[in-house]
């Protein structure tokens, strides 16, 4: 991998992550998140992790975005949550402490691309040299996934199916299940509940951000 290109992609990743966290329009945040995943998949391809790159591009960048957009259209497009400054200032030292700890721990890690790193001395050498005669499969990741470590894969597949069933269990409306949809229009004591209507109308919800952009373009 060419190192300057690597660094540029990392800078793009950082910018996309900061914007995705900070932008008000949630659909824009999801678009930035998909771009973040796509550049991460480029980085995976750069270090010869082709299988991971393919999965990240298909599932991480594609399907995650679709799921996010579906959920945002089902709820509310604009992030109207008020800033909680007290919480931010209590969290920042915590994050700084975490990063400092990690930085201290990373001094014990091997250099980048070191062939003598301890992680490479283990069982994966056996996998690489034995895969072709054991399973007739040139792609070692596939033979690892479905043969040498297939119990791991069995567990992961079970997790995926369980996640789908859990989502069904949480969200499917059943008969006689009418406590939904009444609480949303509840004229309760809070103020921000009324500010967030359902946004099936594109014209109303789209007017404000584009008006800002148009003013910026005319100046």
């Amino acid at each position, binding site marked *: 991998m060419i190192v300057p290109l690597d660094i540029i992609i990392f800078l793009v990743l950082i910018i996309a992550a900061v914007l995705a966290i900070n932008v008000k329009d949630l659909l824009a945040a999801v678009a930035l998140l998909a771009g973040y995943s796509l550049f991460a998949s480029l980085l995976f391809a750069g270090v010869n992790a082709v299988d991971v790159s393919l999965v990240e591009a298909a599932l991480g960048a594609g399907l995650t975005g679709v799921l996010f957009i579906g959920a945002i259209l089902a709820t509310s497009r604009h992030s109207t949550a008020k800033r909680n400054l007290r919480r931010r200032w209590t969290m920042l030292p915590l994050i700084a402490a975490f990063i400092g700890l990690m930085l201290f721990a990373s001094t014990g890690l091997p250099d980048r691309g070191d062939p003598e790193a301890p992680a490479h001395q283990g069982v994966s050498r056996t996998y690489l040299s034995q895969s072709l005669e054991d399973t007739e499969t040139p792609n070692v990741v596939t033979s690892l996934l479905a043969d040498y470590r297939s119990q791991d894969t069995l567990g992961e597949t079970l997790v995926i199916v369980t996640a789908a069933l859990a989502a069904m269990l949480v969200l499917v409306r059943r008969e006689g299940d009418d406590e939904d949809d009444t609480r949303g229009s509840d004229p309760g004591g809070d103020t921000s509940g009324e500010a967030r209507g359902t946004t099936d109308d*594109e014209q109303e919800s*789209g*007017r404000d951000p*584009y008006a800002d*952009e*148009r003013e910026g*373009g*005319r100046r």
Partner: protein
Amino acid sequence: MTLIADIIIGIGMFFIVVSTLALLIMPDLYTRAHAVAKSETLGLLLVFLGLFFRPELDGPSVGRLVAVLVFSLVANPTAVHALVRASSRSGALPWTVIDQEIADAELGTAQERYDAVDDPVVSEATGGPSEEDPR
């Protein structure tokens, strides 16, 4: 052979760079989308055309390249079309050059003009004569 391939790929990369520059310096969404839809598709086409002249190309690679080329030629303009259509329905106005004095003179009626321009777009999108929504 390799020289021809390099020249064609270079021209294609020129178009991609130009479209990226246009994406950065163009003033509004419509001109940016125009740059992406036309110039970048042409650049991609030229890059793939140059790859066909590379000497290390074999049979399966040609098939894959053609498949990727057809996919991107179909999908890229469609995505831009959907994007521009959605933004037009949301009421994004195209960029126009206006003089500062005229702008100051018209400042009082800006909201009125915004509504006047906005309404035809909305009515066309929701119930106009060119409507093709089957629902």
